[in-house]
């Protein structure tokens, strides 16, 4: 582990009390991000990845309860930070890039005004300096004729340009950490590649820590150093990007990999693997493996008690963790397990 990671989160939990029960969408997550590192949080909708991001940003909805052993940004503990401290940090030390730039930007204000507001919130700068800095960043993220853009409204820009503006805004105060929640899901594939490149180049240049939240394993493959796979509010697998993609250890990761058609690898019409069932509602404490109902390899041991995240002792990668009782050497697995029950709905 690095001497001082940019982000260090220990045992992060989010509870949401409802009238009849308490939801546990995030059940104790550990996450560290080093300088210049890209960590991808992967999982399907409902697995808790977006709430994890919001918790790290101090942006949880009011009815949600956050507990954690430690949330530290560059060594500064934020576990007991008040709203004021969070306001100082957000946009300055931590920035976030949202999925849909149209809803994240304010439609009533010009791009230049929105950028100036962020700068003046955190720095003592004149309007002129703010304009200079905004221009510099719009140029850096590859926006043509940045001067004209400053006086435009978000609706006058295309989706790709809006996402570039979002990235420029995230970079305004030179943050240590950027959290990007599905940054390219709303964009065309052609724009997606450009935006991902831009994010990666900026990160390499500045050494920002990047948390990339996505459900798209293709995006992860091109971007991430490390992958954290989440399922049902828990981390089920951790490892270096290439190791996880080459040899997924947790059955959930394995199932995801088998469900994706890849031109040139899967044949036309080949029956694809899938994960039967749906993500269960996260109510009550887990008394067994959370993936049990959907797992083709499930056996008696899986129902005996909660499964711990353990070190997977594998030769081909360091720091690999898995939350599964199956052996890490891949024995007893088969791709057919995922297509067995074709119309299993």
């Amino acid at each position, binding site marked *: 582990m690095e001497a001082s990671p940019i982000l260090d989160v220990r045992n992060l939990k989010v509870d949401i009390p409802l009238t009849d029960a308490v939801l546990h969408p995030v059940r104790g997550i550990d996450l560290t991000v080093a300088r210049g590192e890209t960590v991808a949080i992967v999982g*399907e*909708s409902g697995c808790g990845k977006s709430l994890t991001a919001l918790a790290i940003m101090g942006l949880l909805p009011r009815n949600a309860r956050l507990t954690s052993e430690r949330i530290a940004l560059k060594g500064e503990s934020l576990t007991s930070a008040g709203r004021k401290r969070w306001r100082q940090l957000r946009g300055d030390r931590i920035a976030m890039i949202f999925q849909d730039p149209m809803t994240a930007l304010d439609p009533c204000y010009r791009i230049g005004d929105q950028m100036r507001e962020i700068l003046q919130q955190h720095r003592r700068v004149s309007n002129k300096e703010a304009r200079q800095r905004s221009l510099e960043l719009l140029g850096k993220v*590859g926006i*043509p004729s940045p001067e004209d853009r400053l006086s435009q409204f978000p609706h006058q820009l*295309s*989706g*790709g*340009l809006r996402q570039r503006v979002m990235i420029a805004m995230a970079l305004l105060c030179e943050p240590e950490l950027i959290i990007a929640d599905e940054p390219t899901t709303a964009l*065309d*594939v*052609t*724009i*997606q*590649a*450009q935006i*991902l*490149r831009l994010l*990666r180049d900026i990160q390499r240049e500045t050494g920002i820590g990047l948390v990339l939240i996505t*459900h*798209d*394993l*293709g*995006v*992860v*493959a*091109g*971007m991430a150093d490390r992958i954290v796979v989440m399922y049902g509010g828990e981390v089920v697998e951790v490892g270096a*990007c*290439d*190791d996880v*993609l*080459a040899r997924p250890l947790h059955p959930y990761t394995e*199932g*995801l*990999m*088998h*469900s*994706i*058609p*890849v*031109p*040139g*690898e*899967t044949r*036309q*019409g*080949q*029956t*694809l*693997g*899938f*994960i039967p069932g*749906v993500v269960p509602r996260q109510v009550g404490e887990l008394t067994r493996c959370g993936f049990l109902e959907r797992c083709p390899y499930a056996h008696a041991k899986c129902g005996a008690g909660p499964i711990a995240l353990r070190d997977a002792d594998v030769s081909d990668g360091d720091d690999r963790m898995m939350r599964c009782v199956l052996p890490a050497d891949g024995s007893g697995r088969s791709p057919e397990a995922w297509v067995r029950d*074709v*119309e*299993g*709905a």
Partner: protein
Amino acid sequence: MMDDVLVMQGVTRDYPVGGAFAKKRTLRALRGIDLTVSRGRTLGLVGESGCGKSTLAKVLLGVEEATSGTVLVDGHPIESYGRIERAKLIQPVFQDPYSSLNPRMTVASIIGAPLQVRGEGTGDSRRKRVEEVAGEVGLPRHLIGAYPSQLSGGQRQRVAIARALIGEPKILICDEPTSALDVSVQSQILNLLHRLKQELNLTMILISHNLAVVHHLADEVAVMYLGRIVEHGPSQAIFDRAHHPYSSALLKAVLPPRPGSRLPELGLEAEFPSPLNPPSGCPFHPRCSNDDGTTCHEIDPEPSGTSHTYRCHHPDNFTQTAAQDQAPAD
């Protein structure tokens, strides 16, 4: 030609824009589409947003009328069918199963609605048919009486597919059928669509920006750019040797979830042009890596090739001899 279920000839569609405050202009969403789809084939339609894919789907569904050109469905012009007759032939499956199903209707009444609207059969026979179709698309029996809010995304999309299929249409138009779904659910819907297309000999138009989905289901691929088809051919040919530089770029943009893959360099740095003011000559030239600076700026390329057609002055992926054969046509 009996087996061409769908024929489009020189189809255009214009929309007036502007008016009260801005100058009145015409947006040409479709600029001359020629397309033939044979019975039982699946055509994948790909392109960026704004290229006219969805307008084409609307014209095929009869929701929008073509400004000029002809659309023949099963040998007859689409205008010659009444609303209900047309609905018997062509049915859509939309992208978002959260908004395409009426939240106040039960699954049974949603699936049975097409039959009820047409007044086909009795209540009993309709109910039987609904159960049959629900079984066909893999919807569990106990969900027949449920409301959409009680279903998962994948189940909702199955309901939408069942509703489209209950009237036994000849053509199914799927507009991004899996983009709103998680990958593990997407694969189930792809499996289902593939099985149905084989069992029912369905003709399918599959609109998607996800090339992997198109590769998985389509027999043929048509690539659209600014209201026109710039390349059209058998799926395998396009995926192996795309001729149009735009198709090549789209193919490169597919990110495979494999170790060691890198972010692709597409060479599409310029923005997608405004359909209100399309570039001169070849409309793709401002973004094209093969742009020669003269011909491409002045002359709009006509379609070349026979079974695999493309509109380009300097196509990719030709062997030396093929390129020479091609030269006189430039």
